[in-house]
């Protein structure tokens, strides 16, 4: 019974993914073929072929850095779309051939442009993405510190005292107290 329920659950989970397949299914050998002009674009593999156990881990790591071109802010590793899965197969083929992360990202970038990198390079105009949030945080922090200081500065004996001239309240021993506080005290005292 449990096996039957499990089979039904697997079939239900697999159904949406299968429904998205519109293309001719590639054979295992076709999936492991490198795309056109790989060597001409990024040169020979930078390293030896990884052990089979490492291929899947490296594929996942690198696919997580490549943007799914047909999704909103998703990586090729996350997206179930057919184009993302094709791209992930290509990442796997490149990893299995010994291409490293830099070469694989460069290969995809050569055809899609820098947009395909989910994490933009921290150079040139892109630096804004990294620097601006920190700068805004710094400005915000300065603003808060300045505001807190100004609050404390109002009670600072060294700060210039502003007392309303009307009513001769200075005689009430409220020198150095904000006029509006003095007025509240007066009103309370008057009942």
């Amino acid at each position, binding site marked *: 019974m449990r096996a039957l329920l499990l089979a039904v659950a697997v079939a239900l989970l697999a159904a949406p993914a299968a429904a998205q397949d519109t293309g001719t299914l590639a054979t295992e050998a076709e*999936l492991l073929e490198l795309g056109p002009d790989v060597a001409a674009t990024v040169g020979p593999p930078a390293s030896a072929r990884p052990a089979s156990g490492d291929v899947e881990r490296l594929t996942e790591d690198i696919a997580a850095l490549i943007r799914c071109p047909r999704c909103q802010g998703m990586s090729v590793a996350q997206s179930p779309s057919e184009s993302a899965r094709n791209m992930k197969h290509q990442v796997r083929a490149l990893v299995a051939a010994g291409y490293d992360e830099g070469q694989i990202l460069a290969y995809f970038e050569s055809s899609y442009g820098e947009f395909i990198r989910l994490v933009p390079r921290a150079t040139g105009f892109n630096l804004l993405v990294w620097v601006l949030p920190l700068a805004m945080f710094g400005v915000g922090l300065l603003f808060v510190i300045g505001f807190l200081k100004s609050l404390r500065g109002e009670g600072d004996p060294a700060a210039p005292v502003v007392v309303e001239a009307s009513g001769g309240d200075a005689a009430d021993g409220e020198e150095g107290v904000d006029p509006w506080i003095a007025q509240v005290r007066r009103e309370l005292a008057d009942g």
Partner: protein
Amino acid sequence: MTQPRVSWKVLALGALFLVPLLVVLGWGFLMDPHEMPSPLVEKQAPGFDLARYDTSERIALADLAGKPVVLNFWATWCVSCRYEHPLLVQAEKIYGDRVQFVGIAYQDKSAEIEAWLEKHGGSTYPTVVDVGGKTSIAYGIYAVPETFFISSDGVIQYKQTGAIDGPTLKRELDRLL
């Protein structure tokens, strides 16, 4: 009643960050979000060697060297492909002796391609199937239709994202010749 004090330093600091931010955002409004500039334009077209959907005969870009090529990535499930297909067929009838037109079916199956072409008046040029999508990846396809105009020396001269219109098609074909 005291007036709130205005700190010119804070205002200047705020403006220092806010103005460039607004300039960047304003610049973004001037951009066309549908425009996807291809890094492949003015570069050598990626090679391909794919089988026709109907005869399984292989067509390789290398075999077409010496003749300009119009490469149209399309799919039977793509709505706007219906609108540009008659235009491409018409253009092939006029330019076909000087320009090689090739359709590349994107995420599609031979049976669907055959039925679709039959329904939409057939085709005067070959269509190959990109099994596994490797050629589409090499050409940086975001979505179909996308059309590449390749000069006789194999360099991509222009990329059209989305359905192509008549004037653009004619302009780019004339540029290839």
